[in-house]
């Protein structure tokens, strides 16, 4: 018989409707044995009382329902974003508030390079708060005139290149190719838009973006980043799950000091239908306590701020042409039907409202053709869905995971450029989803925005943009609803609510330990609640 450990806290928030709040949790074999008052847990027998969190708040560990473990890899390159971020080792990476600061940061990094041929590749750049000033070739040529310098924008849809990269790509002033931006004098600004020209630039520098095989060190770094903000389970929502990728995931999660449970989603488009169905069945048999295979990822459209999402009438507010489908609708239906029929769960990326409408229709057709209860197919992002789409989703038993962080990071852009004032009010419409009865999770899409579930919950509860505007006050949800969305709500969308997401008997002893009580702090301060520690399977991190 292994020992019982009882954690005592100022308050335990269980997310378990039978006993919403208590003070003690008893843990045995990495699972929750019981909870209640000191007297209640004493009835389980002799136990070691762990008082280190006695003045803290214990919650179920947070669940990042849409993240990408590639965040761990990003930190091998300098971060040049506008917002403060934290590196895996805990070092703060302060946000850079001007082009000058970005150039200085890149120059400092350049001086650390010893290989004269090494490129300078940076990530996380976001020029939208620089008063209209864009980064230029000249700015990056000041970083180096001999090395290639390539800076990725945080949205993932734009890059800035220096002269060396432009030369290596064959992009010249006199050329007229789509995706090369120019200033008013017709000179290339070095800004590259769209996968065609960006892919070429990435190849020139030897960097191939998010599609790399993740090694164990990078996964450990992601674990550190996520654990620090209270996450105990994270998806890795687009993974080829080739043999070497799966082996890395297995090796990392097998380590006792790996601080997360990982839920990788298999990218269906990496495989033919037959091969994909065989692969996901094979992977499911390899799941462990810290590595849960089973969900399948499908992408219907692109991104709204990149103008590659599929929008319904009247399209983009600034008149940009509609995005293109990533999969033809007929083929999409075939893939959805095949995985649905075989009993798997789909997580479908839909950004524009037309994509959400299409995915809902196709899931609905699959359900009518092959009735199956409790499939929990989930639309991911689903940022422009209206009440009608949410009601259909509810009727079909679908779930949603909304990109609440977008309200803060791109809400102003959506209002001004992509959606206009009316549709932006229902950007990531959490209240409409809940009103329609759609099970709700909310997410960061790390590394697109930093992982921090309390910040994501703050976004959903406050709906503030980066300039302080309240965007869609009626779509705010309450703090308890938002906290549910980052715990049990997210667990439900992963079909793991019997294992994680609340403090309940038999579940994994996964906790987020907080300095303050998120139920009692002002709603506006939710994002400022500090995460003191996490507990995974009873072990403190």
């Amino acid at each position, binding site marked *: 018989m292994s020992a019982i450990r009882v954690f005592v806290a100022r308050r335990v928030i269980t997310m378990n409707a039978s006993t919403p709040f208590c003070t003690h949790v008893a843990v045995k074999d990495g699972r929750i044995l019981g909870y209640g008052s000191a007297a209640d847990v004493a009835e389980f027998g002799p136990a070691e009382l762990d008082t280190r969190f006695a003045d803290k708040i214990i919650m179920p560990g947070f669940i990042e329902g849409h993240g990408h473990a590639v965040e761990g890899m990003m930190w091998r390159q300098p971060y040049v974003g506008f917002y403060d971020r934290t590196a895996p080792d805990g070092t703060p990476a302060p946000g850079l508030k001007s082009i000058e600061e970005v150039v200085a940061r890149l120059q400092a990094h350049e001086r650390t390079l010893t290989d004269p041929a090494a490129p300078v590749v940076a990530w996380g750049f976001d020029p939208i708060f620089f008063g209209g000033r864009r980064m230029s070739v000249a700015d990056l040529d000041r970083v180096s005139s001999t090395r290639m310098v390539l800076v990725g924008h945080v949205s993932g849809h734009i890059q800035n290149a220096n002269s060396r990269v432009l030369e290596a790509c*064959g992009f*010249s002033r006199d*050329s007229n*190719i789509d995706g090369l931006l120019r200033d008013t004098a017709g000179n290339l600004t070095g800004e590259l838009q769209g996968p*065609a020209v960006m892919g070429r630039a990435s190849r020139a520098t030897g960097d191939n*973006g998010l599609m790399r095989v993740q090694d164990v060190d990078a996964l450990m770094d992601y674990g550190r980043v996520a654990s620090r903000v209270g996450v105990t389970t994270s998806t890795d929502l687009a993974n080829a799950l080739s043999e070497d990728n799966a082996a890395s995931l297995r090796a990392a999660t097998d380590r006792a000091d790996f601080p997360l449970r990982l839920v990788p989603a298999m990218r269906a488009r990496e495989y033919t239908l037959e091969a994909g169905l065989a692969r996901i069945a094979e992977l499911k048999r390899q799941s462990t306590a810290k590595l849960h295979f089973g969900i399948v990822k499908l992408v219907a459209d692109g991104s709204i701020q990149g103008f590659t999402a599929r929008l319904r009438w009247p399209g983009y507010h600034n008149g940009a042409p509609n995005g293109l*489908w990533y999969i*033809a609708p007929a083929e999409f239906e075939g893939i959805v039907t095949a995985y649905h029929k075989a009993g798997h769960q789909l997580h479908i990326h839909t950004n524009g409202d037309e994509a959400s409408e299409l995915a809902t229709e196709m899931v609905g057709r699959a359900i009518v053709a092959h009735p199956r209860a409790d499939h929990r197919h989930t639309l991911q992002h689903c940022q422009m869905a209206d009440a009608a789409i949410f009601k259909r989703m509810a009727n079909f038993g679908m779930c949603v995971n909304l990109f609440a962080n977008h309200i803060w990071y791109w809400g102003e852009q959506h209002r001004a450029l992509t959606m206009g004032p009316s549709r932006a009010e229902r950007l990531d419409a959490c209240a409409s989803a809940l009103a329609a009865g759609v099970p709700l999770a909310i997410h960061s899409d790390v590394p697109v925005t930093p992982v921090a579930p309390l910040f994501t919950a703050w976004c959903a509860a406050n709906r503030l943009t980066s300039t302080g505007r309240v965007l869609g006050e009626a779509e705010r949800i309450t703090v308890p609803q938002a906290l549910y969305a980052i715990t049990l709500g997210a667990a439900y969308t992963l079909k793991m609510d019997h294992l994680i997401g609340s403090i309940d008997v038999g579940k994994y002893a996964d906790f987020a330990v907080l300095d303050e009580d998120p139920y009692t702090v002002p709603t506006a301060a939710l994002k400022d609640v500090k995460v003191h520690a996490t507990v995974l399977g009873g072990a403190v991190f």
Partner: protein
Amino acid sequence: MAAPPIPLTVIGGFLGAGKTTLVNHLLANATKRYGVLVNDFGAINIDAALIAAQDGASIALTNGCVCCSLGEDLGDGLAMLARRDPPPEHVIVEASGVSDPWRIAQLALIETGFTLEPLIVLVDGVGFLDQLADRWVSDTVARQLTFAELVIITKADLTADLGPIRREIARLRPEARVIEAVGGALDPAVLHFAPPPREKPSRFAAEAVHDFPTASWRPSGPLDRIRLRAALEALPKSVLRLKGFCQIGPEGEWYLLQYAAERWAFTRVDGPQAAGFVLIGTPGMPDTAPLFAATQLAAEAPR
């Protein structure tokens, strides 16, 4: 002397239009070494007897052809094909069924080792009119045709009246030549603007296909950068291609200019080269010699 540029044909068209069938047919019946980049590698279906070697991302055929998966970057795939020994005699790129093939084709303009042949867009002779009426795909299908230069109506034998289809194509892209195909069978001559001189007349009416008049213009000296750009911007839609070497500016730097349907690229090259442009267009292409003559440094700047 550098190797002559490899002809490159981009084939687009909506899902089900028959792109893969066409590629399979070309590979199986090849009389030259094709290098093919395909979007859906898994759908390539080659007779096992024809396969010389195979791995996860490429198939080498006993007839010298090779078929590879089209990755993130077209240039990457083209470079890989060009490195083969011997290199392919003709490269075919199959665009994805939902992509805009013109976005892919224009990237070939910055590749000096290739010359862009007609942008071919396949139209599903059975499903096209329904696709144009479909609430989800009509804009995609129409956009794919926007810059098409040769439209091939597939499954032509399965449709009684092709008239309405031809009228829609003419409405969307009046500049395109339109031919019909049955199954995947197609005269490989359609992959080129100009018919190879040795080829016998085709039963697929190649003479109609090759209704792409050509013109040429030879400068007498260096061109003015700004006037040349203005001339390129002023070219009518009936000019489909322009390719050739020229000197630009008082320093007389040598460039390769490649132009296709309102997009172009200059690539710096070593000189001297044989200066001159070759243009390919539709039958309505006007004489562009005066336009270019005005770009010469020696010529008087237009007022």
